[in-house]
């Protein structure tokens, strides 16, 4: 974990409204795991005041320079333009100075590989699944990725996932790409076919709630990556907490999304509280 004062290698629109930014970060990849995130400082001057959290899409390094310089390590994030900060980010260019704190938090936990691994990503929730897919494939797992989005614009990086050896299934709410309907419909089908699968999910809270209900019904192990508003990213402000399973006023169990998470095993979370604070219908 380090605060990188560094610069942008590239910043490109990869699907309407979605950008991929590659940032120089020597030494970053050594410590980064799938599911971790970074706190990105949009610009040195205000606004926005606070850093923005983004999942790590992947790490890597550019080939060594012809003039004998060492290879350049980088980290890549993929972001969707939704507000003030991401709008400014979309206008940044190669060479612009940025600050990046990371890698932060606890990522996915995928020890062994009996049975299928099903990854469920909704929209921008695809981001942390790419590194996870890579790690699982390397371990020899069978990895299936269910990608969901509102329209075709929300589906990105399909070929990248396929190049890893992942079997991908696309569904969109409007049917503009892949199957028409919600991604959880696909999940239900797959779980019937692979009852011993393990599920890893990231996406909007209503999707996560639905995925969790399905996994509970099927007794399927589930890990989810959560998004909460964050200020510090390092466990200091206590702004990003979620309630843990079994939380009571007397024996409070508040877990920092930035420190204990952002990836949690589903059974350790209080799903009713989650659903409530995110304004979606309660979970089962």
């Amino acid at each position, binding site marked *: 974990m380090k605060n990188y004062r560094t610069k942008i290698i590239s910043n490109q629109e990869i699907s309407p409204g979605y950008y991929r930014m590659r940032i120089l970060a020597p030494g970053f990849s050594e410590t980064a795991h799938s599911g971790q995130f970074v706190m990105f400082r949009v610009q040195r001057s205000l606004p926005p005041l*606070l850093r923005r959290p983004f999942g790590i899409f992947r790490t890597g390094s550019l080939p060594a320079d012809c003039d004998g310089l060492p290879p350049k390590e980088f980290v890549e994030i993929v972001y969707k333009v939704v507000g003030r900060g991401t709008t400014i980010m979309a206008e940044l260019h190669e060479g612009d100075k940025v600050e990046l704190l990371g890698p932060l938090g606890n990522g996915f936990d995928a020890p062994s590989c009996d049975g299928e691994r099903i990854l469920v990503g909704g929209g921008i929730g695809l981001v942390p699944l790419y590194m996870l897919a890579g790690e699982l494939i390397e371990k020899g797992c069978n990895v299936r990725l269910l990608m969901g989005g509102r329209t075709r614009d929300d589906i990105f990086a399909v070929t990248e996932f396929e190049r890893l050896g992942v079997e991908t299934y696309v569904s969109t709410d409007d049917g503009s790409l892949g199957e028409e309907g919600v991604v959880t419909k696909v999940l239900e089908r797959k779980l019937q076919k692979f009852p011993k699968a393990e599920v890893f999910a990231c996406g909007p809270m209503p999707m996560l709630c639905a995925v969790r209900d399905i996994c509970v019904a099927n007794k399927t192990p589930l890990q989810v990556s959560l998004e909460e508003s964050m*200020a510090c990213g390092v466990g200091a402000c206590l702004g990003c907490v979620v309630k843990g399973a079994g939380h009571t006023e007397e024996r409070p169990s508040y877990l920092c999304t930035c420190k204990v998470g952002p990836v949690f095993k589903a059974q350790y979370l209080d799903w009713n509280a989650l659903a409530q604070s995110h304004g979606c219908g309660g979970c089962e």
Partner: protein
Amino acid sequence: MSETTRTTVKKPSMAVEIAGIKLRNPVMPASGTFGYGEEYAPFLDLEKIGAIVTKGLSLKPKAGNPTPRIAETISGMLNAIGLQNVGIEAFIQHKMPFLRTLNTPVIANFFGNSLEEYGEVAKRLNDIPEIAAGELNISCPNVKQGGIVFGTDPKAASEVVALVRKHLQKPLIVKLTPNVTDITVVARAVEEAGADAISCINTITGMSVDIHTRKPRIANRTGGLSGPAIRPIAVRMVHQVVQTVSVPVIGIGGISRPMDALEFLIVGAKAVQVGTANFVDPSVIQTIIDGIEEFCIDEGIKDIHELIGSLRL
């Protein structure tokens, strides 16, 4: 600056003393924005900052508020953490072992949910030799008095300070809330009740609404505003308090650059705390210390005390 001139420029003396605690320099984190210190160890040398101030501690662990707890505003942020903390026992067991290893004064920020609880925490702090001082947060609602905030009522403030003063065998810093008509009245009351130093300001109550959901952007409806937006209000209040009391004052509110800290020192704060800015830049406290030093060198100031209270009216 060339190497030779650099070595000949003498560094200014940055040490200050607050309520009997010696600080190597006047810059420390503000409570609740620096965890229990350890969280920021990867980003700056904790043995180069003035002091470490803990998250607010209470007798029992406290759950805090429902989420969302924070929201960004223009040049500021709202928070309603609800004083979540591990409680004094867990603090001693899990957080002190790290803090104990550091050669930097630790100031324990604390509060109670009732008058008695304030006293109890104070007593417990006596048992921790490595705690240099207590910083009493009186911006908490007095449950017994229908939720009125201790710090907004000079009488209630005086009462709680006197009680804590009786029990605490360490220097006592009292932290004031800015949500009052006249901060000098409260400042005078807590000084008379035995405060060895005063820190101000805590956050200013604010609110923000999401126009699409039409819901408050934090679950608690209102929260405390902090960050650069509040700095002019904080500078004003520190100025007022410095003019009123004779105990040292620690300035807090929106400090994120060396020049911000200097503003507080010039109006008379003997030290400053940096809060929200830690979130923006985790090594900002070091940057501020370096910047103050540089300013002193540029202005020919040999001792930081020449700067403190040097406001020209």
